[in-house]
């Protein structure tokens, strides 16, 4: 396990370096000069040169990359072109909204999807089993921002029970107020996420229900509940855990879009604004932090999966990756 942990950590670090390189190159290779965003239309060549020098894009690419990596190592994400404020602290402040939104949605989605997915598999041949599957089929086809719009229409504009958007100025000083603002966004993300989770849980449960070991256990006299608990759950949970990692990552990204619908001052709102203003340090910083989050989630999911599944810890390990 220690050897694996070391190898996986090394992989994480290398991934992060490569991701930084990809991000860096993409932003530099794509047409469009970052210096342009500092200038107004009709700037003289001298002004362009000065702007380039100011943000350092007149230096050779490798030198720029190394100096950016150096900054990253000290958690310095640079300064916004527009507000000239450091990007790092701003991102940290925005995460106060995005992280709770992501985690709450994720927990709600799991709490809904696990029992529903199980029932949908266990009762696959009944009418309500079919309905559950149908609803999850519908759920994966719905754009997440549209769900948000519909929920706003019903709960904020018609029933007037929940705010249509925004977030308290003083963040979490008043937890009840903050949670009220987050209710509709959380439900929006969770609804869409649970639809795809239900399909995974259902599929994993069906695998278990059709397995020989479950039949053997039943034949040996275990009740259905006991057989499921002793053997079924342990087997079904393995594929679901690795999916949970991917789902958590996509919940985080789903949150970025949903924040725009509900005008939440999170990472998504910051990114959309940065994009509109061609504020490269902001875009670069957010994308780097997002990729970091996604990679770390994958890292944790892999470790948890290994802790849970003894088969992975042994000989199969290489093939499984």
């Amino acid at each position, binding site marked *: 396990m220690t050897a694996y942990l070391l190898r996986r950590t090394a992989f994480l670090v290398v991934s992060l370096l490569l991701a930084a390189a990809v991000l860096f190159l993409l932003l530099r290779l794509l047409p469009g000069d970052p210096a342009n965003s500092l200038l107004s239309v009709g700037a003289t060549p001298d002004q362009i040169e000065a702007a380039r020098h100011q943000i350092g894009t007149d230096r050779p690419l490798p030198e720029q990359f190394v100096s950016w990596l150096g900054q990253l190592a000290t958690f310095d994400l640079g300064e916004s072109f527009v507000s000239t404020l450091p990007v790092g602290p701003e991102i940290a402040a925005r995460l106060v909204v995005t992280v709770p939104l992501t985690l709450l949605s994720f927990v709600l989605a799991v709490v809904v999807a696990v029992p529903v997915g199980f029932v949908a598999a266990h009762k*696959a041949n009944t009418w309500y089993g079919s309905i559950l599957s149908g609803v999850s*089929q519908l759920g994966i086809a719905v*754009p997440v921002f549209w769900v948000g*719009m519909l929920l706003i229409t019903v709960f904020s504009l018609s029933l007037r029970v929940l705010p249509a958007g925004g977030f308290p100025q003083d963040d979490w000083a008043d937890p009840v107020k903050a949670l009220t603002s987050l209710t509709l966004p959380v439900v929006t993300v969770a609804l869409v996420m649970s639809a795809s989770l239900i399909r995974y849980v259902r599929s994993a449960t069906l695998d278990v229900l059709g397995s020989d070991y479950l039949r053997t256990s039943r034949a040996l006299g275990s009740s259905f509940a006991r057989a499921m608990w002793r053997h079924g759950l342990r087997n079904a949970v393995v594929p679901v855990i690795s999916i949970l990692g991917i789902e958590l990552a996509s919940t985080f990204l789903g949150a970025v879009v949903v924040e725009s619908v509900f005008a939440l001052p999170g990472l998504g709102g910051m990114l959309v604004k940065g*994009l509109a203003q061609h504020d490269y340090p902001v875009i670069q910083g957010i994308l780097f932090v997002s990729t970091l989050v996604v990679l770390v989630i994958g890292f944790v999911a892999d470790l948890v999966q290994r802790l849970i*599944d003894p088969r992975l810890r042994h000989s199969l390990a290489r093939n499984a990756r």
Partner: protein
Amino acid sequence: MSVEQAVIGAPEEDGAKTTPRHVSRSVTLTIGCVLVGVIVLVAVVSLFWVPFAPEDTSGRRLMPPGLPHLLGTDKLGRDLLTQLMIGARIALAAGAGSVLLGGVIGIAAGLAAGFATRWLDDVVSALLDILIAFPTLLLAMLVAATQAASLTSAIVAIGLAMSAIVARLTRVLVKRVLAQDFITASRTSGTSWPRVVIEHVLPNIWPTLSVNLALQFGLAVLAEASLSYLGLGAPPPNASWGRMLQEAQASVFIAPVGVIAPGVLIVVLVIGVNLIADGFRDVADPTRRRRR
């Protein structure tokens, strides 16, 4: 098997079970074809005829459904039905374009990666993992940000992000086929590698791959809608369903059709494609049929 599926990241892998058993496969396929067929038909018709010119703002603003504007007008007085019909074209173009780009790059890269061994294999699969960690939507935003937002930039971004997913799936599938005895047999009897790929590898991976590409089509449609909603998709006068939704959001009570219709059409198209994928899975994959 289940671990490998998790790695591929496709629950649909096992999708024989994702629809209730008593619903016959052909019914799923038929419904899917009808849903997609309707959208395709609308898109084709829009090439030759639309009720009004897309830039025609002569109608009153936010008119309710009626004559002459069958579904009413939007906040600029443009005919809603016209916008929806053009939107069908854009959604299909986004899906098809992304899948074509992502499929070609992904399958080529995946085939190459499938043949890589030892450290090269490790490097390639690590690279693919990293590319996948790079979120589709963010990548698309990046591409859209550095150039002017357009349908092409959206397609390129979605297609590139998709290619990593397709490449990883292809790599796993290729490895699985290459480990089979018939490949060894074919090689021993003197077949060259390129011929092995064409005659044995591609036909064997195609069923799973094509189903996955169909699902990716649906995801691409959703991604394009999200981008357009955020203002990073096709610019006006191209009416993307996502942008229509964004524009109609403020007037949901005065003109509810503008908020409902584009959303419903997106859902119809994506469900249709998913159903076709589900239905096609069993038709195309004889091993799965036998197992049932």
